């Protein structure tokens, strides 16, 4: 993956717990440990808005499909839905009993799905004013570490070494035992495979339908950190953060390290998010966020 660091955002909000592109990759969100959520234009290194209202560290965020709302969750056990333009919290959803570690909108952004340290996944109706979750999924036996939502699937990874696929269309629940605590699980671009970051310093690729392992990618260190992993937009590279301050890129087929991107040596790269449709990604390590991509990509976006 031949990308270089295009921009470095000094977020000035403590440790950045997560960095996320919005739906079209034009903006990114950073979740700070200073209870603030910030919206950036990473291509111009421009801070657009700061969303303050969380009572503790913000742990994850997601933008809605029309970029009019943001859902964020934090260590204050609450999920907050923000109005992007005004910066005010529209709804504050309290229901989890512990830190809410991950949150996602569904495709239509009508449901927010959050996972927490209390082993529960809660589905919140964004459109109604109800303060209770419309559904609580209590299947996990340990903390939920990641959630991904497609049009009819909810994929959760949890520290009980399992990934779960909740199929809404069929009502099937498929649980795959991974053998190691799952730090992050995400679908590949074609939706046929699941990339699972494991706590044993490996990223594994599973077939979604059969549950068989297709590839294993190692060589990096995750330590005891919740290091995110992912796959790039072309499904050619597996990406993962690491404790040594590098972003590791593996060739998906060859399962070899294709490149290592130096973010900040010695600082854990805990959050990465590939661009939804371009060969770029954002990564967060400590207080800084970096945008990676090709230089011409930056030029085309700036204009």
């Amino acid at each position, binding site marked *: 993956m031949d990308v270089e660091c295009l921009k470095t955002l000094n977020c000035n909000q403590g440790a950045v717990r997560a960095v996320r592109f919005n739906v079209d990759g034009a903006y990114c969100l950073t979740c700070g440990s200073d209870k603030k959520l910030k919206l950036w234009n990473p291509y111009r290194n421009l801070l657009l808005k700061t969303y303050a209202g969380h009572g503790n560290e913000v742990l994850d965020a997601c933008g809605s499909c029309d970029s009019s709302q943001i859902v964020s969750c934090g260590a204050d056990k609450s999920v907050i839905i923000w109005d992007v333009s005004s910066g005010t919290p529209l709804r504050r959803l309290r229901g989890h009993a512990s830190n809410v570690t991950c949150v996602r909108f569904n495709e*239509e952004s009508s449901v927010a799905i959050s996972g927490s340290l209390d082993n529960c996944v809660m589905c919140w109706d964004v459109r109604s004013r109800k303060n209770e979750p419309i559904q609580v999924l209590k299947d996990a036996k340990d903390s939920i570490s990641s959630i991904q939502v497609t049009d009819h699937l909810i994929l959760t990874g949890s520290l009980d070494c399992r990934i779960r696929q909740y199929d809404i269309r069929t009502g099937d629940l498929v649980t795959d035992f991974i053998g190691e605590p799952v730090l992050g699980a995400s679908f590949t671009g074609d939706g046929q495979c699941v990339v699972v970051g494991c706590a044993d310093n490996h990223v594994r690729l599973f077939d979604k339908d059969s549950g068989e392992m297709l590839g294993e990618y190692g060589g990096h260190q995750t330590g005891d950190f919740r290091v995110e992993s992912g796959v790039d937009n072309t499904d050619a590279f597996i990406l993962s953060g690491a404790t040594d301050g590098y972003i590791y890129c593996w060739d998906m087929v060859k399962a070899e390290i294709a490149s290592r991107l130096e973010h900040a040596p010695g600082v854990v790269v805990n959050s990465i998010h590939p661009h939804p449709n371009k060969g770029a990604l954002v990564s967060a390590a400590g207080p800084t966020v970096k945008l990676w991509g090709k230089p011409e990509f930056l030029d085309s976006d700036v204009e």
Partner: protein
Amino acid sequence: MPADASDDEDFAIYGTPLDPIEEDAVPSKRPTPIEEQVVLDKQGRRRFHGAFTGGFSAGYFNSVGSEEGWTPSAFKSSRSEKASQRLQKAEDFMDEEDKGEFGIAPKVLRATSDYTQGTSRKRSHMKQSTGPIPGQPVLRDILQPVKDTVGVRLLRSMGWRPGQGVGPRLSHRQKKVQQKEIKKSSRKVYGCQFPGSSNDKSGGSGEDSSEESDSDMKSITFAPDDYDAFIVKVKDNVFGIGYEGLDRRPVLSGHVQLFEPSFLGMQEKKKKVAIWGQAFGVGALEEDDEDIYARDDMSQYNFELESSEKPSHRNRDHSSSHRALTGPRGVGAPLEGFVLGKNQPNSQRKFFRAPDLPPGFTAKHETKQSRWDVNSKGENVAKKQGLGRHDLDARVRASILDEPLPKPSAPSTVEVVPSISQSATTLLPPAVPSSASASLLPGSTFRPFVSQPDKQARYERFLDLVKSGQKDLLTSIQPSSMTDWDKEHERSEFEQAARLYKSGIMSDRFVSASQPDDSLNPLAPVERMKHGNEEMQNAAKMKLFGKLTRTRGSWQPCALLCKRFNVPQPSCVLEMEKPNPRSSTFSVFDFLEASSHNTPAKPAVVIQQEEAIKSRSITSEPQPSPPLSASPPPPQPPPPRTERQSEESVAPKTVTSISDTLARLLADDTGQVQPEPEEKPDLFKAIFLSSSEDSDSEDEDTSKDDTASIPGKKSNTSAPRNLSPPRGIFANLDLDALNARQVERQGETPAALKSDEEKSGCSQKDLKQESDLMYGPRLPSALPKLIAPSSSDTSIPQQQIKQTSAIWVERAVKSESAQDDDSSDSDSPSNASSDKRKSSKKKSKHSKHSKHKKDKKHKKHKSKSKHKKR
């Protein structure tokens, strides 16, 4: 007409005529009321009011209104003018009268303070002080420089200097003349003066002597001599002329004369008070003072400690001292008033070595910018140079000090004891080893003074001394810097501590931790939880993901979720029951539920417990309750019972009270409705209503019996108990252990309990046994006697009851045609008596019961009535 016209023309009318007064209108001749008689000031403002309306004009006619009336002036934000806001002066709040001639701040033409004080008009720059006290330097306010008046400044600018007189400059000669004149005029002459006698003579001689030098000084002019203004001081006291009393004032209050002999100093309560002058003259027994009006100064006192050869230099002979001063300054001729030192001054000064600088010391002094910034560099440096002490652990330190390595656990109690006894043999045991050994074992000894190591060491040595019976030697241990009081206090402290320890108040109370307290250490490594079963783990290890690791299940997405996902709700799944309304208070158990089922298959233990609960539930289930494996078998194993017997058997029911409540709680937890056990009211009846019901008629009792029998039937067919495994707080409850304890107790009195099935008389012993098992007030001990005459059956003694129980069993056997007699097992002696019992029992079945017995009895009755119906 013409007359009329002429009449009219006779009068000339000026002005406009008043309106004609109507006849009925009474002209108001009221005088102006008092409230309208107002006094106005020269501006026309109302000045005085009534006492109740303010008395004095305030604001605008005593209102809070403004000049425009009640409408307030439009609000104008001063936000933008904050910077230009000027200070308010007192004058802003004064009106003209205040500033007038007789007001509180009259405006008079006078010199400004600037003018009188003569300070430069330049704006004094506010200097930020760099000293420890922020703001204006304090001394600046206290010590104000002496300021010249304008006249002095003017004179100065014209060339005048202090000390000179004022006037045209004079030549030398002129000045001499002038001096003479002044001298002449200032000389006091008492009595008559000889005309032109001495004055001329002295004047002439003066002129002659100075004539030679006149030629040199002709060209030089001198300023005229200054003369003191004659200051008239009014005598305002009644003392004698020239007397000054003691001036009691602080030293610094007046002008300090540095170059005059110091006055007598005296200190009074930290505040220096100078004593000035002389008080009360000479005492009656003292010699006359030479000079009454002289100022007493320190020079008049002899401070010489040695006896001087010369008389004290009290004499103030100026001429002699002058001579000594002008005399040749020989080696052996000191000034008068001085004595040569006897010892040669030690010319060789003693120099001390400079202190050794600590390693890493830098001579650079770092100034703290502010006392508030704590994180100045100096502290960090100190922390960094903390010699790394805190980074070392006990082992490393021990290795550095060549000490034996401390044992990880605390078995060292044994080690210490010899050290103490060893030290006790010596007179003064060495402090270091005992304290060191004591410090090696944490918490094994009672150490009350750990915070003060030296004190603790002393305490330990004190203990040793006490052991050796040399308590008094404590003072020799204590440092000499301690005062006697401190020593005594410490001794009493030590004695108290030793008493506390010896008496076991403290030593019994504290137990040294057997395990490291990891719960307090957030950094202690935590074992990773093992998930999944063996198969899955093995498969994952072998990377055989797929079928082995995949589990398929189903879930029920709720309708709304499907709707929001634009997906039709899966129809294959059964319609889920309506979610019960969420309780507003959400409990921890909601979340515990998920984590408690960590394994998909039910563990065997849980199932066992389940069974135990089932068997112990009050609604006695048909199968006989199997004895728990955990519970020890009772001394007299209960005979194998038939269904009815088990129903009637009381013992297990009384025992299971705890598991009952647990089961009920569990049932509540899952929302299963559990019928209230019908024994409960009977229990209370038995306890509280027994005496009254005993006296009741038999009929009433029977009717009650019948009604009570109906729920008894129901209980037979009641819904099964909660079958789910215990969850939440019950998950870890050892029900077996709880039950085992009860069973043990039951085992002690199996016979008595069995006998309870007979409703007949309850003996004293029975009551006692029951009271062990039930709560509530105890029955009076006299009760059985009261009951005794009521029926023949109630007075059956204990042994008889035992028999009846045997009979009862026998009868059951008969009715059920079960295997042969259990009666042989029971301790019933005779069959003849049992027959008698039988009849009596039958009779009593419907007659009165001794209701003070426990609920079990009722149960029995119910079952009995059931039998009857059958």
